[in-house]
C-alpha cells in the first residue's frame, strides 16, 4: 500500500508513528512493529522530492524501527500482558519507543491546550494592553522635528505606493456643505427627477463621490430633496421638494 501523504503534513517521525498507530487501531503498549515499520518505510519511499530536505529526522527513526524489528525476531520472553512487571517490560525492545511515544502524545495534547488558551477558547486572564506612551506630561520625551518630518514622508510614500492614482485626503478636504449647494442646483435642472447614478457622475474622486452621497442624505433628511424609486430595482430618481415660495 502506498501513501501519497506528504511528510510535511507531520510534525516529525513521532507524529507519523502516532498516526500509523491510530490508523491501524493498535495498542500503543503492544505495537506490531513489523507492520508499522513497513508502513513507515512506505511513507518515506513515497515522499515527494520537496520532502527530501526534511527526511533526515525520519531516517533516524527508520533505523530505530529496523533495529527494534531485528531484536523482536529473537523473543526471549513470552508475549507481554498486563501482568508483566516494569522490570520485565524494560527488556521489551519496544519499551523505550513506547515511552517516547507516550511522552510525545502528552506534548501534542499540551500543545492543543495551549492553542485553546491562545485563541481564548478556554477561560483565561488578560493582561492590560499597555499604551505606548506614559500618560504623565512631566515624563521626558526624546523626539526631533527631523524625525517627525521623515515619519510623515514615509507614511505618505507608503500611501501612494499602496493606492497609486487615488486622491489622498486633500488638504482642504471635500466640503459636504458645498456639495449640498451644488446638488440643489443640479437636481433643480431636472424637473422630472435626476437619476441617482447621474448625481455621482460629476465626482472626480471616490472621496468626492462620498461627499455627494453624504450631501444627498443631508438634503433628504432636511426635506429639501426627495428620492423616489418607481419599482423594485428600478432607477432611483432624485427631485427637489417644491415649497410655496412667498413672494
Amino acid at each position, binding site marked *: 500500500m502506498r501513501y501519497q501523504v506528504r511528510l510535511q503534513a507531520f510534525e516529525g517521525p513521532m507524529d507519523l508513528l502516532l498516526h500509523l498507530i491510530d490508523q491501524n487501531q493498535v495498542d500503543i503498549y503492544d505495537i506490531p512493529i513489523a507492520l508499522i515499520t513497513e508502513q513507515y518505510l512506505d511513507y518515506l519511499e513515497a515522499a515527494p522530492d520537496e520532502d527530501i530536505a526534511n527526511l533526515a529526522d525520519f531516517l533516524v527513526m527508520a533505523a530505530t524501527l529496523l533495529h527494534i524489528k531485528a531484536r523482536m525476531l529473537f523473543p526471549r520472553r513470552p508475549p507481554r500482558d498486563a501482568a508483566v512487571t516494569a522490570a520485565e517490560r524494560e527488556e521489551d525492545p519496544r519499551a523505550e519507543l513506547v515511552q517516547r511515544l507516550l511522552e510525545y502524545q502528552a506534548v501534542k495534547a499540551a500543545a492543543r491546550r495551549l492553542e485553546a488558551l491562545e485563541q481564548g477558547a478556554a477561560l483565561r486572564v*488578560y*493582561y*492590560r*494592553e*499597555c*499604551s*505606548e*506612551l*506614559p*500618560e*504623565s*506630561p*512631566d*515624563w*521626558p*520625551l*526624546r*523626539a*526631533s*522635528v*527631523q*524625525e*517627525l*518630518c*521623515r*515619519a*510623515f*514622508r*514615509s*507614511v*505618505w510614500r*507608503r*500611501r501612494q505606493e*499602496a493606492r497609486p492614482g487615488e486622491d*489622498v*485626503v486633500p*488638504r482642504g*478636504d471635500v466640503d*459636504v*456643505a458645498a456639495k449640498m449647494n451644488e446638488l440643489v442646483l443640479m437636481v433643480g435642472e431636472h424637473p422630472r427627477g435626476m437619476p441617482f447614478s447621474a448625481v455621482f457622475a460629476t465626482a472626480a474622486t471616490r472621496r468626492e463621490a462620498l461627499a455627494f452621497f*453624504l450631501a444627498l*442624505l*443631508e438634503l433628504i433628511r432636511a426635506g429639501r430633496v426627495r428620492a423616489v424609486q418607481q419599482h423594485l430595482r428600478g432607477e432611483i430618481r432624485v427631485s427637489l421638494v417644491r415649497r410655496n415660495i412667498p413672494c
Partner: protein
Amino acid sequence: MLMRREVRAALEAMLFAAGRPLTVEELAQAVDMAAPDVRALLDELVLEYNEKGSGLLVAASGQGYLMCTSPEYAPYVKKILGPGEKRLSQAALETLAVVAYRQPVTRAEIEAVRGVRVDRTLASLLARGLVAEVGRKEVPGRPALYGTTVEFLRVFGMTSLDELPPADKED
C-alpha cells in the same frame, strides 16, 4: 442574562484590558444590553472609582470611557515604568506626523493615510497631551478634529508650527 453585578464586572474587565477609550456602543454590544443601561452602569463606575480613593480611575471623555491610573499616583507609576527618556514608537510618531502636517484632521482621515486603525495610538497621544481635540468637522456625524498642542511644540523644540520643515521636499 447577566446579573447587574456581573455586567459591572464585565465592563471593568473590558475597560482594563482595552487600554483605550471604549464607546458605550461597543460595550453595550459586548454585554448584549441597551446602551442607556450600560451608560448608567458606566457612570456608576466612574463615581465609585472616584469615591473609593482607588489608584485607578474610570473617566468619561468624548471618545468613550477609559480606565487609567489616578493622576496623584503618577510619580509612583513613573518609578515603576522606568526612568529616563522615552522615545516615541514608530506608530506614535507616524500618527503624530499626520496630525502635525494635516491638522485639523479627523481620526478617519489619519487612518486613511496610515492605512491602519489608530484609535489606540491616538488615545495615548491624547493622554500624553501631544494632540488635542480642536473642534468638530461639519459633516454628518460631526467627527472630532485633532490638532497638535503647545506641549507638542515644547517636546519638539519649536516655538510655532511654522517651524515644521516642509514635508513635500525629499530628503
